[in-house]
């Protein structure tokens, strides 16, 4: 895969580049500021990019904004956003276009290199990958979407793992169930959330959106 790494701290950027290259992927560009990131994303069109939220020049959410702007230009451009903290607010903004190919993780997720690169590959493939911390926050929040109230407990746990970005196979392993059982649960929860079987929309992304959409 061709990867762009956008991170302002040299040590972290360097470490990330080395980690990604160690897994046999190619880092085609790096960026250290918001404008550089946007430029790199739009000109290099990487298979996937790793973007830090807080970057110069304003040290606010430059990276996040660059990622969102790039995805407005190129729908579904795969971006994995990294941050020192995760906010539901940002997760919702990233997922809002429903195009998939999005990931949002705490920076320390790179500690587990296998899982990190796995998430990176999932995002590159158009899937979603959410940090368990985001999902945990969602679970602890009070109100939720009307459709979600009709889900059974099991469907709930399947949906939350799906939101983390796991495949049916991985969910089956986590819950000690067969893959066919999981696919039955997913079909029924898609039905309850009113997500139709349409090839052009990413059903899993829509399910996660329903999960996040609690207004």
């Amino acid at each position, binding site marked *: 895969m061709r990867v762009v790494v956008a991170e302002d701290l040299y040590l972290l950027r360097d470490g990330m580049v080395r980690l990604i290259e160690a897994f046999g992927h190619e880092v085609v560009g790096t960026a250290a500021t918001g404008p550089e990131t946007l430029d790199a994303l739009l000109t290099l069109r990487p298979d996937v990019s790793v973007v830090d939220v*807080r970057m110069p020049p304003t040290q606010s959410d430059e990276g996040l904004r660059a990622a969102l702007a790039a995805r407005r230009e190129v729908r579904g451009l795969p971006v994995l956003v990294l941050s020192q903290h995760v906010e539901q607010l940002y997760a919702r903004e990233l997922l809002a276009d429903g195009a998939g190919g999005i990931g949002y993780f705490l920076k320390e997720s790179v500690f587990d290199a296998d899982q990190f690169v796995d998430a990176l590959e999932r995002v590159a493939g158009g899937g979603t990958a959410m940090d368990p911390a985001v999902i945990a926050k969602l679970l602890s929040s*009070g109100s939720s979407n009307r459709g979600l109230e009709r889900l059974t407990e099991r469907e709930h746990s399947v949906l939350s793992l799906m939101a983390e970005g796991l495949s049916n196979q991985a969910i089956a392993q986590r819950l000690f169930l067969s893959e066919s059982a999981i696919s039955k649960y997913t079909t029924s929860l898609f039905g309850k959330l009113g997500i139709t079987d349409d090839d052009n929309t990413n059903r899993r992304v829509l399910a996660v959106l329903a999960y996040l959409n609690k207004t």
Partner: protein
Amino acid sequence: MRQVLSWVRRACVGFVRACAVAAVALLVPAVWAAAVALWIWWWDAHLWSGIGPLIWACVGTLALARPVCRMFRALVARWTGTVIPAGYRQPGPVVRMSTGYWWNGYSYERTRRDALMDQKLRMWWRDPAVWRDLRFTAIAPLTAGVVASVPPAGVVAAVLGFSQPGLPARLVGALGLVVAVAGAPYAWRIAEPVAVRFLRPSSTMALADRVDELTAQRADTTVAQAAEIRRIERDLHDGAQARLVALGLSLATAEKLMETDPDQARALMRQARDGAATSLAELRELVRGITPPVLNERGLVDAVRALALDSPLDVTVDDGVQLRLDPPIESAVYFGVAELLTNAAKHAHASTVRISLARDDTGLVVDVEDDGRGGADVRAGGGLDGLRRRLAVFDGTVEITSPSGGPTHVRMMVPCASS
């Protein structure tokens, strides 16, 4: 008939009030008149014998100034509802020091009684209100005193005039009666404008008050800041620092074991990684407590929205404004909202909360309303008191309406220049 009755009643009430105003306003002049009368009385005996009554009159004026002003204020407040702030200085606390002496804010005294006496005297002497009161006792007789004396004086003239034979005397008496009756309902009203004009705290006093307030706030802020820094230091010391030491130890041991016991080394390295993750989580919590990252990245409105998303309650945010204020103000308001959300969940057992952020001509207005059971009050040292203090630093105010049974409505207002 009823009109006449009500007019008579007003005249009677007015007459009594005019007498009261005149009596209070003329109290000090009466003391001086008595002193001068005594002096003249004793004039033949010795010229200097009049000094005594004059000294007594001075002392009497000093002692009476404040009670006269108090009475005036009380009368005006009672009759017209116009409350005039007194603006007297409030005594600070008298505390016992470790040496056993008492400190009253000005000096050390051997006993509490001495300290209180000393404080009272010094405060009285330094209080700019004393000069205002003295000035008022000089002005009041010439203004309110003169006007309010008209009805009583008319009555006196009437009584004297009718008690003597002769047409001119009768005429004077009739005139006095007319003046008394016609002036009775109105004469006392002079008290209000005079009091408002001359009894108000002067700008010097207002400034002195403000200085006191700011001094107290500064002390509060300094103490709070110091406590906060100590907390951060302790958290870092017991948390991240200790964990980093453990991390170094694990890595050093793993390095040693690499050749001889690779399995053990691998386990230690995994442990080190877990330790790093834990200390990162701790640091994140710490940072969130100092200043939430989303506040830095997005400003107040989005930070409040993020707070609403994280709350276990059903929180709606109405934000008519996209504004960036000074970071310290944003931080104070943010932590205020966080405190109120916590209260709504923990104490009020609310299920929905409505937050609205708006700005008007004077500044930022944040309303937080829940559907809980109410009964919130500001206890000294409590969360709401802390909120009030935090906002007071920016001249912000907190209004709390929380009847028992709910709902609770809190309005925070912070003045700020438009940006």
